[in-house]
């Protein structure tokens, strides 16, 4: 469903250029759970931002179902984000004046879905993600794990097919992290949501079906899980990270 072709991204002025992404290419298949790993500063966030249309590429192409996202008009882009993409950030990015329910249903209702449909959709998703009890609460009244599940619910409530997550467990404790990863796996398995998750944490990565390793803005390696169990996969990931060089402890 997603094709990334030779994209490059530069930051900075003429005499001081940072190459955040350097000729990165890969494909994502429908229903896949892909993780992108790399040390801090390796370009993970930049890559995700380019795919999510938050940022633009300096060179190369990103195709969604064969269509170049760079060519979309403002309205088409908004529609595209609304209907196709879901985002989850490390720091939740929920609106603190809205209840959990309103946060989830906001985009749907602002785009003229009738109240009943919105409510049904929100309840349905909330049930799957186990946040039905907190629907009427405000973000500051719920835990980090619940906030992140709210963000996940918002990301898929309109039937979006691609979930982009940037270090979604970064601000969570290990129990909440595990819980969230389970939920993301479920979403991938049961709802056939395609997942593209960025992390620097090997444990989180071990939930994926495929892991891409990024180093200094380049794709360095790729690891497929196949039929292996999660703990085996986890150790393989650690091996690659070690090979990636020096700062394993930093990566962990």
């Amino acid at each position: 469903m997603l094709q990334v072709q030779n994209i490059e991204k530069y930051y900075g002025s003429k005499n001081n250029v940072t190459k955040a992404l350097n000729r990165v290419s890969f494909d994502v298949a429908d229903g896949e759970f892909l993780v992108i790993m790399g040390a801090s500063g390796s370009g993970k966030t930049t890559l995700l931002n380019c795919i999510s249309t938050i940022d633009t590429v300096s060179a190369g192409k990103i195709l969604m179902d064969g269509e170049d996202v760079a060519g979309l008009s403002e309205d088409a882009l908004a529609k595209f984000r609304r209907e196709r993409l879901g985002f989850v950030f490390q720091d939740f990015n929920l609106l603190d004046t809205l209840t959990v329910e309103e946060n989830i249903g906001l985009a749907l209702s602002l785009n003229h879905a009738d109240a009943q449909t919105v409510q049904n959709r929100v309840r349905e998703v909330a049930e799957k993600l186990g946040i039905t009890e907190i629907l009427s609460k405000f973000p500051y009244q719920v835990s980090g794990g619940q906030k992140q599940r709210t963000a996940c619910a918002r990301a898929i409530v309109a039937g979006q097919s691609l979930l982009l997550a940037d270090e979604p467990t970064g601000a969570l404790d290990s129990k909440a992290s595990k819980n969230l990863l389970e939920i993301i796996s479920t979403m991938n398995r049961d709802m056939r949501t395609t997942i593209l998750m960025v992390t620097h944490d090997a444990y989180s990565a071990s939930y994926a079906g495929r892991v891409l390793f990024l180093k200094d803005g380049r794709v360095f390696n790729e690891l497929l899980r196949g039929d292996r169990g999660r703990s085996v996969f986890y150790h393989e990931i650690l091996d690659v990270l070690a090979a990636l060089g020096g700062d394993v402890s930093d990566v962990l």
Partner: protein
Amino acid sequence: MTYFKLSMRNAGRQARDYLVYFVTMVLAAALIFAFNALAVSGEVLALTEILENFSLIIVLASVAVVCVFGWLAAYSTRFMLSRRSRELGIYLLSGLTGRQVARLFFLENLAVGAVALVLGAGLGGLLYQVMRAIVMAMFAQPYRFALEFSLAALGRTALCFALIYLFALGRSRRHIRRMKIYDLIYFERQNEGAILQKGKTRRLVFGMSLVLGAVGTCLLMRKSLYIAPAGAFCAILALFGFFLSFASGVPAFFERRPARKYRGQTLLVFRGLTAKLASMGVLMAVLSIVFTATLISEGSSSVLYGIMKGRTAEATCFDLYIGIEGETPDPGPYLTYIGKNIPVEQERPYPVYLTGKTQVQDHLGKMYYNYSCDSDPVLCWSDYAALRAIAGYPAVEPPGPGQFPIHSMTYLEEALRDYQGTILVGETALTPGGIYTEHLSQSYGTANGRGYILVVPDQAAEGLPVHHIAYAAKTARPVTTAQYEAVADLARAERDRQEDPSGYVFVLSKAYEETEVAAQAVVGCFPLYYLALALMMTAVTILTIRQLSETEHYRSQFALLRKLGMDRREMARTLGRQFALYYTLPTVPAVLIAGSFIVHLAMMPEPGVMVGWNSPAVIVMISLGAFFLIYAIYILLAYISLKRNVLASAR
């Protein structure tokens, strides 16, 4: 959740988070409403026809006020937008278009504006009553509280508000439409950065700004309409130079003096302040200019009122006064008219003589400028005693034999006391015999002397040359405008019959003069105060919004300090000091520049006018007092809310 609901909820939050801004907008509506209600009030306009132009002037002033508040609204919405960039980014990410986000923001501000307008109009109704009472008191008319609501004023206020918000929202709409999601989501507060980095340039700019400031202030004080703008230009340049170089200079100052840095709370106070100033150099300069403009318009309106009051105080001591220059004018015609038409309780026609010598004038020298009396003016004692009675002053003992009392305006009193010489009036030699200084109509050409008059025994005055024939009366009722005009016509006709028809003629009626002064004050001073208030409120609101936006920063800083073992009282003191410095800085140049300007302005009119409650010192004090009163209220509001937020959480 609909657009409407979401906008309303955001509006509520906006009013809470930016309470200072909201309160100011309410006050803005109240101000616009009250002044416009006054300008369309039939009761006020009927007071005198001099007020004819008042309505138009308030319209013009309102245009200026709309620009000022438009600036505030534009600045504040822009500021809110940057503070809420992440929220806007989330909207965009959720699939809203820039247009939709702009519409959300528009609705939100519309709601806030509408509420401010309604509250403000209510408050403005009360303010209008207060102002009406003041105006009525100025015109010596009875004030009766009457609950009236002016639809015309409401319409004008609504129009002003629409313009204010349209301007601000038009700008923010363009801004929203141009925003990039990336910048919104990953918005990290960028410092504008110090503009002047190089130490040498900075010192040069700093030095030059001080020189320019002094030069500008001097130029402003020249009595020339051509030079004053150049002075203002210099002063403005100076303020920009000062704030740009000062803000970026403070950190450098402490870099070079590490020992100073760690003394007491210096580090905290200055680090907190310079972080803000470095990014606020231009804004601080602009605010300082606004404060200067505020003080100048406040001060000049006080001076203006002072001049008018001072000049008329002298002219309104008699209910009716007439003076026609020349030896032979016949008071007959106007006496006949007055006898028929004006109920008089006490009256006196009398001559004002000249000694033919200039002894006293010579003694006064430079501080006295001769106008139409080319020798010392004289009243005879019996006329003087009668005049005192007509003016309602206590009777005084007749002078001892061979003495001449002097009646003078206060500004000459001291100099006249020094006069010890003997004067020769006709054949009689007289020595000084005391000074009286009540108002006695002494500042006009055909008045009771110009500035001073010598009072001599009746027989000594006999045979002296007559400067003019005067008349003073105490009437049972205030003289009406029609009566005043009739008398004035008769007096002028009498003057025209004189040998030299170019002489002076003055007809003064207490009631007429007072109405005229009140009307001029209303027309001249009210709009200036209107503008000054708008400027002041706008500037201090912007200052406060910037201060309060640092709440988060302060909170974490003080929580940390608390952990490091800093005492709560000490923290409160540090916070207080940062506050004091922050709010003092932009007012210092304003007070210096505007203060010297006002003092100078107040010293411009002829001597004897700006005295007592009108003296330059008092006017400066009152202007500064009014300014700092409002200033203090805002500071207090900001301090309380910051202290509650910052120190409470740092327990």
